[in-house]
């Protein structure tokens, strides 16, 4: 008996010594500088863990593509270990219990647990669900309003005192419009998180706390949508589903709201004096936390999940989240990274980078995430698109119908 056990141990030890490294697969959804930086971090990790763990990062298309592929993989039973998933696209995974509660690793990892409060509290709150802490922040951002300071000056407006409310955006846009027919005060499209922001800022709501009741049809939302439609109708705002980036860089747009993650890109590419300010408010000062988090799938083998946990810690370490933030312009996940001299230097050199942290502290909230939300959101987007691309359309009627149709989707889901 004893001999046998020894023999088994021996075999196990030999197997371990010659075993291939544990393979962790991570699906990600970004390209360019974002993927480059992620791949750099992965390469650093693999070097450190050579022979033990090997992370393979796989690009799986846009946020939407990645979600679709993950849903298919879930059905087929071949999900990756980790995935970068956009905030509003996680509902079905959460509801289906697909994600690993990371608290299980944290409680066995006192060294790490001691640093948990180093994460921005609103990021941890945004990743906490009934089942526990399901994700770690990766590329988080809040929306900023970017302004073309040259156009402000030309129109006789003070670029150091940019609009703080949507009414002020409207008034400034009227002034800016006098600069020429091709110039617009505000540019917007169908970015889903901004649609949420507009509604919230005008005092409206989208969906109830428990995700079961639509609240979108209200005088507040009608006002919000009427406001943007009015700007388009009068020719002082410009709406489009495509070509937004080109317009933003063209020097013909005075104000646009985009992710804080665009700051680096716009700084590099905009050939005008670029200003940035916090997103305007109307009735309420509130912004959504956008971007994506990393999630672990609970169905993967234990050893693989343990290896993935090592990688998650590495990815969100002070050093790497600072590196990620420096390269991409996204926010750091940790306060210590934010306080690091490299990041602080950026804020000192360019205070525009600090705005997003100000918003994070003051007014950032989690986006709706419920299971049927992607479908509801597609309906909201299509209704929004219909009234913005045809500014004679009756906003009230469209919202009323949307509310009804979306409620049916919620009812079917639950």
């Amino acid at each position, binding site marked *: 008996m004893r001999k046998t056990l020894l023999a088994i141990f021996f075999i196990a030890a030999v197997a371990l010594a010659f075993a291939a490294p544990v393979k962790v697969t991570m699906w990600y959804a970004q*390209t*360019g500088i974002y993927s*480059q930086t992620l791949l750099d971090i992965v*390469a650093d990790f693999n070097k450190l863990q050579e022979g033990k763990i090997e992370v393979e990062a796989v690009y799986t298309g846009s946020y939407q593509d990645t979600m679709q592929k993950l849903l298919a993989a879930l059905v087929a039973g071949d999900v990756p270990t980790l995935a970068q998933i956009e905030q509003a696209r996680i509902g079905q995974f959460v509801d289906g219990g697909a994600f690993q509660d990371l608290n299980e690793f944290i409680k066995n990892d006192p060294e790490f647990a001691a640093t948990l409060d180093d994460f921005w509290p609103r990021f941890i709150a945004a990743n906490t669900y009934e089942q526990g802490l399901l994700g770690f922040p990766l590329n988080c951002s809040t929306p900023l309003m970017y302004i073309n300071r040259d156009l402000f000056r030309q129109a006789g407006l003070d670029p150091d005192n940019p609009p703080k409310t949507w*009414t002020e955006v*409207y*008034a400034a*846009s*009227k*002034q*800016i*419009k*006098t600069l020429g*027919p091709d110039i617009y*005060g505000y540019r917007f499209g169908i970015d889903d998180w901004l649609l949420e922001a507009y509604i919230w800022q005008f005092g409206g709501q989208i969906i109830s706390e428990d995700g079961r009741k639509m609240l979108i049809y209200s005088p507040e939302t009608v*006002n919000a949508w*009427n*406001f943007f439609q*009015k700007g388009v*109708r*009068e*020719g*002082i705002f410009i709406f489009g589903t*495509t*070509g937004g*980036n*080109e*317009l*933003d*860089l*063209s*020097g013909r747009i005075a104000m646009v709201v985009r992710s804080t993650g665009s700051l680096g890109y716009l700084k*590099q*590419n905009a*050939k005008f004096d670029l200003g940035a300010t916090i997103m305007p408010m109307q009735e309420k000062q509130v912004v959504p936390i956008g971007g994506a988090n990393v999630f672990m799938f609970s169905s993967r083998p234990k050893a693989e999940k343990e290896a993935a946990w090592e990688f998650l810690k590495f990815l969100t370490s002070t050093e790497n989240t600072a590196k990620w933030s420096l390269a991409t312009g996204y926010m750091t996940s940790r306060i210590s990274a934010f306080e690091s001299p490299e990041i602080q230097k950026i804020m000192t050199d360019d205070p525009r980078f600090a705005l997003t942290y100000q918003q994070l502290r003051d007014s950032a909230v989690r986006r709706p995430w419920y299971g049927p939300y992607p479908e509801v959101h597609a309906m909201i987007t299509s209704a929004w698109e219909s009234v913005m691309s045809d500014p*004679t359309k009756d906003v009230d009627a469209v919202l009323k119908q949307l509310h009804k149709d979306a409620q049916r989707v919620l009812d079917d889901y639950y």
Partner: protein
Amino acid sequence: MKRVFVALFISISLIVYGAVFFGNIHAHTSYSDGRGTPDQAFRYTRDSGVVDIQAITEHCHDLVYPLPDGSMKLDVIRNLAREYTQEGKFIAISGYEWTLTSRGHITIYNTDDFLDRSSSDLLDIYAWIVEKKATAQFCHPGRTYGDFFDFLYFPEVDLYINTIEVGNGAGKSNNVIKPEYLERYQRALNRGWHVGASANQDNHYENWATANDARTVFVIDELTTQKVYEALKTRNIYASEDRNAFISFSAGQSKMGDILYDQPTATLKIEYSDPGDPVASVWLYSNEGPLVLDVEGDSWTIDVDVENPLSYNWYFVKIDQKDGNEIVSSPIWFQSSSEKYILNARSVDARPIFGLPFEIAFDLINSRKSEERLNVTIMGECGTVMEKEYVLPPMSCVEIRETLDCTSQDLVFCVDGESAFRLKIDFTKFVAHLDTSHENYYVSELQYLTELLSNLGGDVRPVIGELTEATMNRGQVLILPLPDQDTFMKDFMAISEKQIAFIKNYVESGGLLIVVLARKAIMHDSLSTYERLFEELSWGVSLEDGGLSFEGPSGGIASGVSGGLVLKWNQAIGKEPLDEEIVQFIKSRLNID
């Protein structure tokens, strides 16, 4: 309209075809934002056999990052291009794409270095291209990525940017030649660029050259690296959505892409052959518009006699096949050897007011390598409108703006006595501005009033944005509707004291103010600002019933030099008839018979 004589000579056989080779000169791999590697891409396209020429053109800003082994991506691509090239069989090209969205994307070929967009703007990359004497291409021109400052022209850069994509796309459909690209192609030619037409797949997946049938076709007699580069330089290429169609476009011994000098007339020859793929329509595009040619079948030749009345004329051919595929040739240019041109002439205000001085603008081009004097005359029906001499630096294009005081509709611009450009002026009798900036956006509601003024020969333009003195002063009529009581942005209903002052000034200087009364009674304080305006105007008008009606001069006509008109809502929207007296008043104020 240019006179074109079509000498039909359609022959079914005996056409001697030159050789053509097929290429795809815009594609990406994972070295930027695509998939796979350049090595895979060159191997794949070579082995697929669908093209003879393949370029890899990664985005400039991704080339900045070295590969894991420390080597620079562009160096690797250059080496691979050399490795994969087999003269006579397959030509691999290295390049990169300068990618500054909003300005435009440019692929640049066979350079040993690159310029990153983050440290450069359009004029920097132009200077770089000239310095490197590179071969470059305008990519997918248009709204999405940019149109190079509306193809602002630089004669020296024109020597090195030799092609433009009229087709771009890696979708399953062959439909890569889009109206937007075709329109921008003509715009580039009209601004002076000498660019030939290409169609590329711009692949980002591992389907290089095989995504669809889009091809850049090289009209060269043998497949060598040198001839491929020469063809790019001389624009001896055409864009095709068909994988094997042959076309030829020539004038005498010259072929598409060539520039011919001092030929007032010419015979253009178009040849087509694609057995089993007959044409649906054939167009000859020129700087004076497209002309449809009457040909059919899958193999034919046609001769077209043309006159070249201006110092700068271009022609290209567009063939639409019955299966929906399109083919676009590079142009042939007929130019004056004076190398002094006028292009892009236009009236600054699309519809200037008849009888008043108006501003025109044009591009004056000196393509000579020496400083030159250019004597510009503008001729109208009634004789010389303007004559002026300009001195231009060597190889330069300058935008000139001048004010003309004439009523000629057809203007001919000449440089040193040579006809250079023809421009038609679309005069309007007067301009009426319709205010929409005081919660009074009634553009569609006031259709009746708008049509009335249009029928009197006027141009009604909504005021977009703030109502300013400068906007108003560019017209003879200001329509000011009272604001909408139901607006949810009541803060914007009032007119400011400043606006009251300049409207008063406008009226006193002869401007015709037409106030349209409220659609619904206004219960808001802002109404008092309109009462203030009437006080200042001294028309004797006082508003009643929340601006629905008024007390004052009969019929709303405040006569006299500083007078004007008050219309009830129903009159302005045509629900109540307008008295003849009112129409007469408008006419007399605008001096219309």
